């Protein structure tokens, strides 16, 4: 197909809500598809390890229903990537359940494509052993043992699985982990639009109206692409795209603003141009894409242990005058108390982190500000141990040590300022991202399982 023009609507974050009137306005312009990103790794490893979606199910249902019914009414496909925040299989099934309810309640029928993106650890091990897994700087050490420690691994799919689903007749695509850009690039690429423009547009599309000003909550963005440029604009009147706001988005959540690496492509955005078309629309051109060896980025998490925490305030000037000495004193006390109560051999099976807000609570070892704290200080202490029982026990001992930590200025002394009567908080099982690598594949579809289903 050699269309001259394609246009689409972009949703940056399903489950956080967008304006229904913006969606309607966009649909009334006559667009070719709706793309929606539902994923993020910014919340940490828990979404991939097994906790719920980052967003409440009621809002997910509202967003998905508006998108499905709007797309249906206009006879256009809906592509959703990274279902359920992490794009693990559970997220695809969650979104499929919601889609079935939407279909049943509306009396409409849909062909949904579920694309699963979890990757078996043994496949990764095989590719590691054949030298086909490559670090993406900065990457942690990664070997067969690390892959096998992962409680879950997903691969971020490129454009091809979406294209396959559309070619098979899906009108709603529910994809597991996908690169944010691939959701928006799939259909324009298959219609022959310039890959440099397409991927650059995908980069802008993936956060909806994050590329607008003034900064406001995420809403629906409209992109119209021709053969040599594309035009981007918001659909709500109170925000606008300017050359500055759209260019600034090229910086968003990437370490390098000039180069975008996608499965099968490297995109050079250093030659991109941004021009105002009106006071709220911007024309973008000039990026170029070059085919590259086909790799899929892996995301994986491993279990670290169980975590408890407690927190308190300090107002005593004699403590605040030398926090380091006060902390060292408590740590000595903790070490001896733990050895007495839990046995010397248990030492080293847990770790504690003491975050002293007012000193270096935010920056940790990267703090360089020489100014001391103000008149009060907040302290957050956590304990990570291999299992829940050990964690509870160790936390209780350490909590008691802080409760009776001596003030250097006074005889006796009382306790610190506990903000809540509840003493310690159970944070549950905790995980760590353990891979930042790209894996070579034999075929863009190799890691991804596609299932079509008629619903309604």
């Amino acid at each position, binding site marked *: 197909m050699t269309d001259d023009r394609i246009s689409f609507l972009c949703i940056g974050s399903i489950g956080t809500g967008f304006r229904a009137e913006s969606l309607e306005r966009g649909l009334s312009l006559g667009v070719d598809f709706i793309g929606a990103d539902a994923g993020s790794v*910014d919340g940490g490893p828990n979404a991939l390890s097994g906790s719920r979606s980052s967003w409440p199910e009621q809002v997910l249902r509202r967003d998905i229903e508006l998108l499905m019914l709007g797309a249906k009414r206009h006879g256009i496909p809906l592509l959703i990537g990274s279902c359920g925040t992490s794009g693990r299989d559970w997220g695809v099934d969650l979104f499929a359940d919601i889609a079935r309810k939407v279909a049943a309640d509306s009396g409409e029928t849909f062909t949904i494509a579920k694309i699963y993106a979890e990757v078996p650890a043994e496949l990764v091990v095989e590719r590691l052993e054949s030298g086909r897994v490559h670090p993406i700087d900065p990457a942690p050490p990664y070997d067969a043992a690390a892959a096998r420690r992962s409680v879950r691994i997903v691969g971020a799919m490129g454009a091809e699985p979406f294209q396959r689903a559309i070619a098979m007749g899906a009108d709603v695509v529910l994809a597991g982990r996908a690169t944010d850009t691939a959701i928006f690039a799939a259909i324009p690429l298959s219609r022959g639009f310039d890959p440099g423009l397409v991927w650059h547009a995908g980069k802008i599309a993936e956060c909806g109206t994050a590329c607008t000003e003034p900064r406001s909550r995420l809403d629906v963005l409209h992109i119209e692409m021709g053969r040599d440029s594309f035009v981007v604009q918001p659909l709500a009147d109170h925000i606008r795209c300017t050359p*500055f706001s759209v260019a600034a988005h090229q910086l968003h959540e990437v370490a390098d603003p*000039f180069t975008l690496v996608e499965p099968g492509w490297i995109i050079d955005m250093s030659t991109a141009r941004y021009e105002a078309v009106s006071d709220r629309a911007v024309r973008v051109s000039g990026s170029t894409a070059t085919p590259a060896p086909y790799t899929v980025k892996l995301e994986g998490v491993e279990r670290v242990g169980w975590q408890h925490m407690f927190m308190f305030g300090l107002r005593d000037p004699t403590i605040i005058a030398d926090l380091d000495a006060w902390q060292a004193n408590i740590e000595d006390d903790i070490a001896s108390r733990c050895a007495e109560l839990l046995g010397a051999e248990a030492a080293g099976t847990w770790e504690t982190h003491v975050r002293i807000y007012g000193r270096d609570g935010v*920056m*940790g070892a990267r703090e360089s500000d020489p100014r001391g704290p103000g008149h009060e200080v907040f302290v957050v202490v956590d304990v990570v141990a291999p299992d829940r029982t050990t964690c509870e026990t160790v936390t209780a001992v350490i909590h008691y040590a802080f409760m009776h930590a001596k003030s250097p200025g006074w005889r006796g002394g009382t306790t610190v300022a506990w903000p809540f009567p509840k003493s310690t908080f159970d944070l549950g099982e905790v995980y760590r991202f353990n891979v*930042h690598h790209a894996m070579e594949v034999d075929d863009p579809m190799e890691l991804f399982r596609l299932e079509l289903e008629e619903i309604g």
Partner: protein
Amino acid sequence: MTRTTLRDVVTSARSKNAGPFSVTIDLFLPDLATFEKVRASGVLSPETVGDLYRVPADQVKVHHFQPALAVKISMPRATPGGSPDDTDVAGGQQFAPLLHLGLPAAP
């Protein structure tokens, strides 16, 4: 005379994770002249930034991005985002120490 710092000249500053293993900082400058002045001052070199954050200079990447009059600085995170020992899960406050860097006085 009071010292001029980056905080006095930037129009906006932000930081965010760039994936689970990197943090990236964007500093926006008000006009091309200030953008060029900051670039020429060398105050945002990998060495000065690395010293400030105690990160080896060869791991600090500095990009000057003229279309948005921005300087982008990326470095490895202290720990993967959201790990149990993390202090800033989304990396949202990591830009702040840069604001105190001094700029050379105007000639």
